[in-house]
């Protein structure tokens, strides 16, 4: 199955993509995506966390990694038993009109396309249309009604795409079963092992979501920071009005530095 979506998703979209990919990979589903930043990268990362096979369909030659920021990710995909595939000859650089063609290929490789956050007219919707044209199932993850990145997904849902709340919904569709509503999904922060240390004072902010609270202990583990240090930094963000407490965790406050 393919997971596609925005290149600049909200922390919510990124989290959903990662968590879905983890659970699906865990269930033995190969996760196809496009090695772009944002949702694509999160989907590949999630599949790797789930120790599953993930396939990156490139819009460049297989020897050209674009964007370069994902060079390391590409290497880990291959090392994890996945594949980089491309319909373009070696050495082909990024070209604007190659990407829609790559999207068509992505849909062709998958039995099902899941869209996570897509603005109106975005590349992810092109992939969804390609899937429909090829007779593949299309599903979408709902988002906030305040977010422009939800519009594309909500359009798909209105037009009859399947609703995705969790991996079970996707597996149900793949296996022709009726999906069952389930508990809310646990955000991937709780499941993550480690990541990079944040840069600068606001570094932590990038790891907070406006959709669900993230607990300081999970942040500390993920970023390899000391717990007391994380609590102090989060309070500083609170003081500056950039984050706020909710239950045992912290939310990013909307409207500042949002993508």
């Amino acid at each position, binding site marked *: 199955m393919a997971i596609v979506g925005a290149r600049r998703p909200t922390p919510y979209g990124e989290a959903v993509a990662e968590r879905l990919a983890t659970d699906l990979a865990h269930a033995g589903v190969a996760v196809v995506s496009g090695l772009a930043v944002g949702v694509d990268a999160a989907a590949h990362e999630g599949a790797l966390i789930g120790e599953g096979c993930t396939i990156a369909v490139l819009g460049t030659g297989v020897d050209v990694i674009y964007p370069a920021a994902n060079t390391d990710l590409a290497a880990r995909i291959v090392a994890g038993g996945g594949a980089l595939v491309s319909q373009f000859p070696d050495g082909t650089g990024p070209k604007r009109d190659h990407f829609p063609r790559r999207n068509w290929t992505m849909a062709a490789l998958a039995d099902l396309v899941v869209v996570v956050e897509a603005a109106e007219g975005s590349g992810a919707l092109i992939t969804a249309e390609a899937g429909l044209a090829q007779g593949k199932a299309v599903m979408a993850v709902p988002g906030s009604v305040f977010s422009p990145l939800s519009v594309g997904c909500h359009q798909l849902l209105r037009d009859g795409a399947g609703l995705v709340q969790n991996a079970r919904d996707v597996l149900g569709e793949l296996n022709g079963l009726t999906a069952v509503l389930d508990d809310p999904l646990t955000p991937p922060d709780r499941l993550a092992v480690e990541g990079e240390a944040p840069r600068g004072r606001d570094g932590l902010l990038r790891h907070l979501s406006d959709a669900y609270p993230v607990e300081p202990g999970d942040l500390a583990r993920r970023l390899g920071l000391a717990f007391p240090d994380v609590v*102090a*930094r989060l309070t500083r963000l609170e003081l500056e009005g950039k984050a706020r407490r909710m239950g045992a965790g912290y939310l990013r406050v909307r409207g500042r530095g949002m993508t």
Partner: protein
Amino acid sequence: MLPRLPGVVARVLSCLLRGLEGHLVEIQVDISSGPVGFALVGLASGSVREAKERVRSAIHNSGLPFPSQRKLTVNLAPAELRKDGAGLDLAIGVGISLAALGLPSPRSTAFLGELALDGAVRHVDGVLVAARGLIRHGVGALFVPEADAAEAALAGGLRVYPCPSLSIAMAHLTGDTLLDPYSGRAPAPAAADASPEHDLAEVQGQDSARRALEVAASGGHNLLMYGPPGAGKTMLARTLPGLLPPLELQEALELAQVRSVLGDLTAGRPLEWVRPFRAPHHSVSLAGLIGGGSGLATPGEISRAHHGVLFLDELAEFRAATLQALRQPMEQGHIVITRRSGSVVYPARFQLVAATNPCPCGWEGDSQRSCRCTPASVEAYQRTLSGPLLDRIDLQVVVARTPMDVLGREAVGESSAAVRARVVAARQLQIDRQSTLNAGLRAPQLRRWAPLDATALSALRRWAGQRGLSARGFHRAWRVARTIADLDTGGPVREHHVMEALGYRLVERAA
């Protein structure tokens, strides 16, 4: 040497308890000609008047003479002190026997114990407290029930005679068969590395609560845990005694006195070194919690938790009046209970750990289940938590349930022993610097012992201004920051210490 008064043939000492004070009682026995009878005078309550029957049988069955053909008067002095309990039995029995045999009364020797009808001496409560009181009155030797000898010996400086029966006591006094004084060893403190019953290593995740427990243990701060059922609040609270250093000898003695009065000491091993953990149910009565009861007030849960932990689970379910009554002991470290028969003072220097659900159904704010309460009922519930008691709880943390799919993935945490090593070091630092734990610092002391640098002060002021923090709240965060700095470097309190301290409080509600 007690002067011999004409007519009075025997004078024997014993002791009565008023709270944690032992009062000297003199039993005067007079045998004279006159109407045959046995009179017991001196403000004796029912249980003491019954002593007449017990003592009479005990003397008969011990093969000792009872002056049944004469007028026998026993006076319990001083007359204004109300006498209750069976602890005077042995002294009365000894007094009558001495008088009947025409023997001199022993000097500066006291007797404690209840008599069985066959003359055996039975356990009484409060022997340690009595022994300490008797020492103050210059008494040098004390006869106690065998089971209570180790307890009496804790007082130190007394010759303690473990006394199985009235006849054996009399044999000693007549010089026939001398008893050996108790020679048990002085109590040895517990090994500092003893592994606690509830170890922090068994707790998965819960980083906020773990850290808050460490800070609470280090600074003596009170702690509130706020979260849904099944989040592990009780388990976390139970680890606190294991994070604290063992009791000092003086502390152990103070606690033993409370437990002595309650008859709650283990025979032969009266001193405990592990800090107490008391967890009264929320239906506890006022008297049960702070002390009281009909007649003479007995110590309550707060005194049983002296130098240890008082855990109040489901804080919002406790009656408001009950929680109100905690304020005085929390400020003063002791409780004064006034009854018709007089006031008693019991120590109550406890560390409070409280836990509460966020709402009546418990699930408000949970990540997996939704709350079924109305907004009004949630608000009413949380209002019961606010106010003066919450003001006295320095550390407040949210404890969330760990989702099923996270359980088992999280690394095993540090053991209690590892945390305790840091706690002990931080506590020593505080004692060396200011002779008290940080939780006891008031504003002037904070300025002296926990000065904030300019950045730290402006951050705290900015927070206080933004959130409408009360003066109490301001000082709370300041105290906690001091403890965090003591755990860190022991040096000055910096901005990041203050910022972390502010992280351990509930979201302020509009007043």
